């Protein structure tokens, strides 16, 4: 268990899925903030330095790709100390996916990642 609690921002609009991740992460002693829209996620990421951001792509108000572009686009990185994990079930075009992969630390298909597997990935990063 880390001495300083590891902080995680979960940007996920599906309540079932969000609650599932938050529960598993909190049980593993992570400090978790959960928001349900792209705009709220962007605001939270700008206002606090998180260790990890779990980012969905299909989000209301602002898509995950736009959120990451604002945080890590145009040659600047507003969140240099944060590791971003994209968690999506959307099958993106190869080029769009590869462009997004360039900007994040992990790109995972939610249907393949159970909460315990997610904990393993976070530990590994």
């Amino acid at each position: 268990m880390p001495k300083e609690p590891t902080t995680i921002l979960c940007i996920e609009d599906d309540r079932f899925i969000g609650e599932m991740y938050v529960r598993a992460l909190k049980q593993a002693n992570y400090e978790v903030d959960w928001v349900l829209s792209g705009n709220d996620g962007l605001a939270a990421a700008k206002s606090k330095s998180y260790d990890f951001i779990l980012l969905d792509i299909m989000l209301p108000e602002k898509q995950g790709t736009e959120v990451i572009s604002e945080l890590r686009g145009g040659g600047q990185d507003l969140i240099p100390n944060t590791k971003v994990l994209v968690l999506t079930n959307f099958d993106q075009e190869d080029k769009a996916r590869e462009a997004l992969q360039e900007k994040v630390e992990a790109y995972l298909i939610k249907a393949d990642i159970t909460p315990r597997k997610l904990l393993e990935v976070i530990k590994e990063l």
Partner: protein
Amino acid sequence: MAVRQYHKNFSWQFLGLFIASQVAVGCMVYAWQDYAHTYLNMTHPFLMVVIPFILLEIICGSLLLAFIVRPVSKVEAALSYAYRSSAENEGILKDLPSLIRAIRHLDAIKNPESKVTSEHAFASSVLEHLPLGVVIFNQKREIIYANSAAPTRANGKELNIAFSDNDSLEGWLNSVAEKDISASRWWKRLRQAVSPDEEKRQFFDAFAIYHQEGTDSIETILITVDRTEQYGVDEDDLDFTALAAHELRGPITVIKGYLDVLSHELDDKLTEDQKAFFERLDVSADRLTTYINNILNVSHYDRRHLNLHLKEEKLKNIYASIADDLELRARTHHRLLNVSIPDTLPTVAADRGSISEVIVNLVDNAIKYSNEGGLVVVNANAEGDFVKVSVKDNGIGIPGSLIGHIFDKFYRSHRSRENTVGTGLGLYIAKAIIESHDGTISVRSDEGHGSIFSFTLPIYATVADKLVKSDNSNASLIKPKKYIKNHSMYRG
């Protein structure tokens, strides 16, 4: 058919030319008659009209035949053949020598900067009005001519077609230039590389003819057929497939996730039976995920978009990423899974996620088509330049009459429709994935006694140079920081 329309247009143009030539002949005969009567005092009608008329008709007919009708007929015949072959999907057309001869005969494009003659103008007009794209390359692979129907950009200097990295025109030309004097081949379902409007992106079938011939500046002719109407529909289908997959994956995420949470939190309260039920639920959800991945992969493959990132991998590590999942599947179906993948095997060039899916499909089939308590054996060994992986079961086997169809799309074995679930896509996509690795997949089966499915992957050292040279796009995936790309590693 577009070529028929072209034929009709040409027939009217030719009729015009013919009438004009007849009027010219009439005028010349009239002028001769006047001249002969006035200055030569001729009166005989044979000398005055009939003989000059016959002579002029012969000259005029010969000119029309030699410079217009014959070459254009050759172009038209060759293009009709090319178009028909393309439309009927007859495979690779072996040769179109008449097209090459006809285009060379027209001689309008060899020296585009030379003085434009009426012949050149006519030839250009013929090519401009073709319903097919015609692009001509010189020996330096530069475009020296492209008609208006051809998909080009940068003022006709570059092809505007997205060939896949490992199946490009450039790559094909490189390979044929080494060993062939002439060669030809089709590409199907090619996308326009750059389109101002994504929704109006065009699709093409393309036919290339390569001919190495001394100092002649024409080396390669590429003919393109616009297939947007036909393939555009597939794009819509894919959008639907991607959306449907997204919708299906949502509930699966929830089912698998909560099962994971529940089985973990209730671990010390559950009986052995209840734990087994949780495992069955888990395995079933995994299987649904596999089916959805297969459907998505097939739709990508059908569009030639099976984008693989081949890297140096240890087979043992690839298997380790799916070992728990497969062990669970075998256990819940009361099968024994015996895996023997030596750590000492040479590394292979593989896309980890795709090969995981191939192994999952093969082992899943072995489980489905074997009997209660049956043994499934996974083996790997090196054979020449390849590593061979085999999945063996002692199940129902496949009748000899059906084995030739086992890798077909939507094929399901004789008994599978009654006894087991599935989409009939698993082996089809397995074959596609393995062949995209330059490997082979095969099956041996004894009905009633079981089957052995085997596939090969190239040993990394044998293809490393080629990989490094050919595909720079993979470099963008290799990041200095720790990076996790492949979700299949964490399937659980």
